[in-house]
C-alpha cells in the first residue's frame, strides 16, 4: 500500500533576508549576509553582537513579536487558499518571552499582561487568524522544532487525519536566546561563517516560515514533502555527538521514509550553524552517509540561526531549490577547513534539482531532517497499515502526595493529592552526577520516566520519548532572567540557559536511557499531555519499539500565578505529572490508550463531533465505568456547561470525577488523571470515596475509562482493558 502524497500548496516566510517568498528568493540569488549588530532592544552592557534581525515586521499592540512573525508567514502561506487548514502545527521555543522579559523587569503583576507568554498561544493565535478550528499544536524541540512540526504534519496527512495542515516554525529575538548563546560562547563576533576554517559560532536570529501542506493535489504545487526523519543524540544537553551519530540517523530515517537513496539527493541544506562542534559533527555525518556528497550549503551565514524557525525556513529554501532550480550559497565562507572535508557552494548555482535533504539539529540532541522534492518525481515507498492502539505496560505518577504508591493510597481514601513535590527526595533516587545541574522539572521528569520504565519491566529501553509540558522549566528560565537583570546583563548563567529550553527534560531522559529515536516535546497549555500522546501516536509507529510518554509541570513562584490562568496567587500551588511506558503490543499490557478527539472549542457542535468519535467503534451506552473530567479553574463555567451538554447529549450515566479537585491546578494535571485511569483499570476498582459512591468494579461491567479535557479545547483519552 502506498500512502498519500503530501504537497506544498503554499509557503510563507519572513526572515532577516526579507518578507515573502519572492524577496527571499531574490536575496538568496544576491548571496549577501543580512547579519548586523542587534538594535531590537537596548542592552545594559556591552557592544551589540551580530544577529539576524527582521526589519519589515508589521507589529501589533499587545502581541509578542513571535506571534507577529508567525502571522506574517502564515498569511502568506494561506494567501491562495479558500478554505482554512484543518490543523496548525507550530514549532517555537520563545513564545512570548521577549514581552515577558520586559514585564518581569517592570514587576508587572497583572496576569492578563502575560496572556501570550505560553508557547501554546502561538499556535492558537495562528489558528484563529487563519480560521482553523481543529488541533493547534506546538512542538518545542529547540533548533529542530520547525522541521519536527513539518514532520508531524506529514504523518498526520498521510494517515488521512487531515487534508490540509499549516505547519512551520517561528522564534523572535529575545534576551534569553541572545545572552544565552553568548554565555555559551557560541556567538561569532564577526558574523557567522558556517563550515569556514575560522568559524567562531552562530548569529542568533529570528524569523518564521509556514507551509500549507495538503494531500489534495493543488493546481500548481510548489513541491512535495516525501520524508521526515527524527532522532536523538542521547549524548549531551547542548553539544552534538562528536561523530554526528544522531544527525546521521535522522538523515537515514528521512531518506528511508522518502524511499530515496543518498544518490537521489541533489542538494543538502545543512544545519550549519557556524559553531565549531556542530559543523564538524554534521560534516562527519554527511561524509559518512554520502561518501561523495552532492552540493551542500548552509544559509545561516546570510540569515543567522533563527532557532525554532530555522527548520521551517530551510524547508522553504528547499522548496525554492526544487521549484526555481536555485541552490543558495554558503554566504560568508572563505577558507576550507581540512578537518571538515566538506566544501560548500560559494556562489548561488542554477541547476536542475529534484530532491533536497534539509537538516535541523538542536539542543537536547533533537534532530529532524526533511526530504523535499519536485512534485511526483519519485515513486512512493510502500507504507505499513495503520498501527494498533498504544499499549501501556507501566506507569508512574508524581504529585504533592509523593510517588505513585503514595498518590494512589491517598486517592483510595478520597483525599486530595495536590501540592508541591518534594524534589530533593525525588532526586535521591537518581544518579547524583546526572541531576546536579537540574532543577525541578527535569528532576521530576527523570523520576517519572525511571519509575514508569521499571514498572513496565520491558527488556528493551525506550527508543523514543514524548513529553508534554504547559510551561517548561520555569525555575531555570526565571533564574536565568533574574541573574541577567541582577548583573546588569553581564553574567547570565550558561547552565540555566541550557536548562531553560522546554525540551531539556526529555533530552535528559534520552541521555539516561539511551533513547536515540524521536524525542518530541509538545506544549499545549492545559492539554499538553494530550498533545504528547497525540505526537506519540503519530510518530511511534514501529510495533517493536518501546516509548515513554511523560506529562509534567513544575510550580513556581512568582511565575506560575502570573502565567497560568487557573493558578491563583492565594491558593496553594500544585505540580507533578505522570509517565507511561508504551508500545503497540497488547500482550502483557496493563491497558490500552486511545486519543480519539483533540480539537479547539468553537461551538456546541464540537460536543456532537466528540460523541461521534467516541462511538465510532461501538455503542457508547455503558461503555465507560468512569469519566475523569478535566476542567481548569479558569474555564470552570464553560467546562461545566460543556460537560453537562456532553452528558445530556450522549446519555452516558457513568460517574464523573472532576480530577483537578484532587490534583490541584497545574497544566499537566491530565497526566495524573491518566495514571488514575490506568491504575483503576489494573486494580479493577475505582475507590468509592472518590466517585461519591460505593467502589465501582469495572471488572464485571464497563471496561473503559474516559479522560475528558474541557475548556478552550475538547479532548478525549480512552483507557481500555487489553
Amino acid at each position, binding site marked *: 500500500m502506498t500512502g498519500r502524497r503530501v504537497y506544498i500548496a503554499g509557503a510563507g516566510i519572513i526572515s532577516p533576508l526579507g518578507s515573502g517568498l519572492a524577496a527571499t528568493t531574490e536575496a538568496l540569488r544576491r548571496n549577501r549576509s543580512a547579519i548586523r549588530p542587534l538594535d531590537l532592544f537596548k542592552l545594559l552592557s556591552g557592544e551589540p553582537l551580530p544577529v539576524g534581525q527582521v526589519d519589515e515586521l508589521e507589529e501589533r499592540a499587545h502581541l509578542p513579536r513571535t506571534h507577529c512573525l508567525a502571522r506574517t508567514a502564515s498569511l502568506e502561506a494561506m494567501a491562495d487558499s479558500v478554505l482554512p487548514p484543518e490543523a496548525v502545527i507550530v514549532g517555537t521555543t520563545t513564545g512570548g518571552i521577549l514581552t515577558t522579559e520586559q514585564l518581569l523587569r517592570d514587576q508587572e503583576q497583572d496576569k492578563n499582561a502575560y496572556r501570550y507568554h505560553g508557547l501554546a498561544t502561538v499556535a492558537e493565535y495562528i489558528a484563529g487568524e487563519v480560521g482553523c478550528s481543529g488541533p493547534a499544536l506546538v512542538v518545542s524541540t529547540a533548533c529542530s522544532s520547525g522541521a519536527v512540526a513539518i514532520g508531524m504534519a506529514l504523518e498526520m496527512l498521510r494517515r488521512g487525519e487531515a487534508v490540509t495542515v499549516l505547519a512551520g516554525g517561528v522564534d523572535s529575538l529575545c534576551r534569553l536566546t541572545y545572552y544565552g548563546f553568548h*554565555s*555559551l*560562547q557560541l556567538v561569532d563576533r564577526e558574523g557567522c561563517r558556517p563550515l569556514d576554517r575560522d568559524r567562531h559560532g552562530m548569529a542568533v536570529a529570528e524569523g518564521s516560515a509556514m507551509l500549507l501542506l495538503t494531500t489534495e493535489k493543488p493546481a500548481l504545487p510548489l513541491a512535495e514533502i516525501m520524508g521526515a526523519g527524527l532522532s536523538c543524540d542521547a549524548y*549531551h*544537553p*547542548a*553539544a552534538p555527538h562528536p561523530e554526528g551519530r544522531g544527525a546521521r540517523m535522522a538523515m537515514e530515517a528521512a531518506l528511508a521514509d522518502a524511499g530515496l537513496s543518498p544518490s537521489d539527493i541533489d542538494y543538502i541544506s545543512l544545519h550549519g550553524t557556524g559553531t565549531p562542534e556542530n559543523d564538524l559533527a554534521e560534516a562527519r555525518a554527511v561524509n559518512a552517509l554520502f561518501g561523495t556528497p552532492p552540493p551542500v550549503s548552509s544559509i545561516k551565514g546570510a540569515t543567522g540561526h533563527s532557532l525554532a524557525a530555522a527548520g521551517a525556513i530551510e524547508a522553504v529554501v528547499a522548496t525554492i531549490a526544487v521549484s526555481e532550480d536555485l541552490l543558495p550559497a554558503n554566504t560568508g565562507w572563505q577558507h576550507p577547513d581540512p578537518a571538515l572535508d566538506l566544501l560548500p557552494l560559494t556562489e548561488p548555482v542554477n541547476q536542475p534539482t529534484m530532491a533536497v535533504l534539509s537538516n535541523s539539529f538542536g539542543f537536547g540532541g533533537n534532530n529532524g531532517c526533511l526530504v523535499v522534492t519536485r512534485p511526483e518525481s519519485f515513486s512512493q515507498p510502500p507504507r505499513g497499515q495503520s498501527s494498533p492502539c498504544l499499549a501501556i505496560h507501566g506507569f508512574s505518577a508524581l504529585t504533592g502526595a509523593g510517588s505513585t504508591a503514595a498518590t494512589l493510597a491517598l486517592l483510595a481514601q478520597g483525599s486530595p493529592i495536590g501540592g508541591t513535590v518534594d524534589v530533593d527526595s525525588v532526586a535521591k533516587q537518581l544518579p*547524583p*552526577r546526572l541531576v*546536579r*545541574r537540574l532543577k525541578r522539572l527535569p528532576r521530576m521528569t527523570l523520576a517519572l520516566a525511571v519509575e514508569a520504565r521499571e514498572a513496565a519491566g520491558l527488556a528493551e529501553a525506550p527508543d523514543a520519548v514524548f513529553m508534554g509540558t504547559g510551561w517548561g522549566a520555569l525555575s531555570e528560565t526565571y533564574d536565568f532572567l533574574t541573574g541577567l537583570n541582577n*548583573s546588569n546583563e*553581564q*553574567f*547570565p*548563567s*550558561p*547552565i540555566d540557559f*541550557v536548562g531553560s529550553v522546554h525540551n531539556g527534560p526529555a533530552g535528559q531522559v534520552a541521555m539516561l536511557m539511551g533513547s536515540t529515536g524521536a524525542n518530541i516535546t509538545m506544549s499545549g497549555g492545559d492539554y499538553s499531555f494530550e498533545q504528547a500522546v497525540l505526537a506519540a501516536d503519530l510518530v511511534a509507529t514501529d510495533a517493536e519499539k518501546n516509548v515513554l510518554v511523560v506529562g509534567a509541570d513544575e510550580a513556581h513562584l512568582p511565575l506560575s500565578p502570573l502565567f497560568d490562568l487557573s493558578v491563583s496567587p492565594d491558593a496553594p500551588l500544585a505540580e507533578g505529572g505522570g509517565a507511561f511506558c508504551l508500545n503497540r503490543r497488547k500482550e502483557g499490557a496493563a491497558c490500552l490508550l486511545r486519543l480519539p478527539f483533540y480539537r479547539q472549542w468553537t461551538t456546541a457542535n464540537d460536543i456532537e463531533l466528540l460523541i461521534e468519535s467516541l462511538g465510532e467503534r461501538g455503542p457508547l451506552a455503558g461503555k465507560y465505568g468512569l469519566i475523569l473530567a478535566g476542567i481548569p479553574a479558569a474555564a470552570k463555567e464553560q467546562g461545566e456547561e460543556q460537560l453537562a451538554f456532553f452528558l445530556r447529549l450522549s446519555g452516558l450515566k457513568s460517574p464523573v470525577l472532576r480530577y483537578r479537585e484532587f490534583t490541584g491546578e497545574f497544566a499537566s494535571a491530565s497526566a495524573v488523571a491518566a495514571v488514575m485511569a490506568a491504575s483503576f483499570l489494573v486494580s479493577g476498582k475505582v475507590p468509592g470515596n472518590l466517585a461519591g459512591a460505593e467502589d465501582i468494579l469495572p471488572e464485571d461491567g464497563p471496561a473503559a475509562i474516559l479522560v475528558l479535557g474541557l475548556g478552550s479545547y475538547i479532548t478525549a483519552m480512552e483507557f481500555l482493558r487489553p
Partner: protein
Amino acid sequence: MSKRIEELKVKIIDILNLQDVDPEHFDENERLVGGPLGIDSIDVLEMVVMVEKEYGVVINSQEVGERVFSSIASLAQYIEENASGSKS
C-alpha cells in the same frame, strides 16, 4: 595562594552543585574537566562567568580555558596573575 584555592573549591562546589564533594577532599591538583567529577564544557562556562564576576578575570578563548581549568591549582594561579590589584 592556598587561601585562594580553598575559596575556589567552595565556590565551585556551590555553583556546580557538587553535592558529594567536600572541600577538604577536593584535590586542587586533580584533573578538573573531564575528570571523575563529570565536569564538562557547560560547567567550564559557568566557572568562566564566576571567575569574571568574582575576580574580574576574563577567559574568552577555548585554548586559554582548557589550560586554565585543567585543575583548581592552575585556575588559582591564572587568577593570581591576571586579577586587577583592587580585586585580588
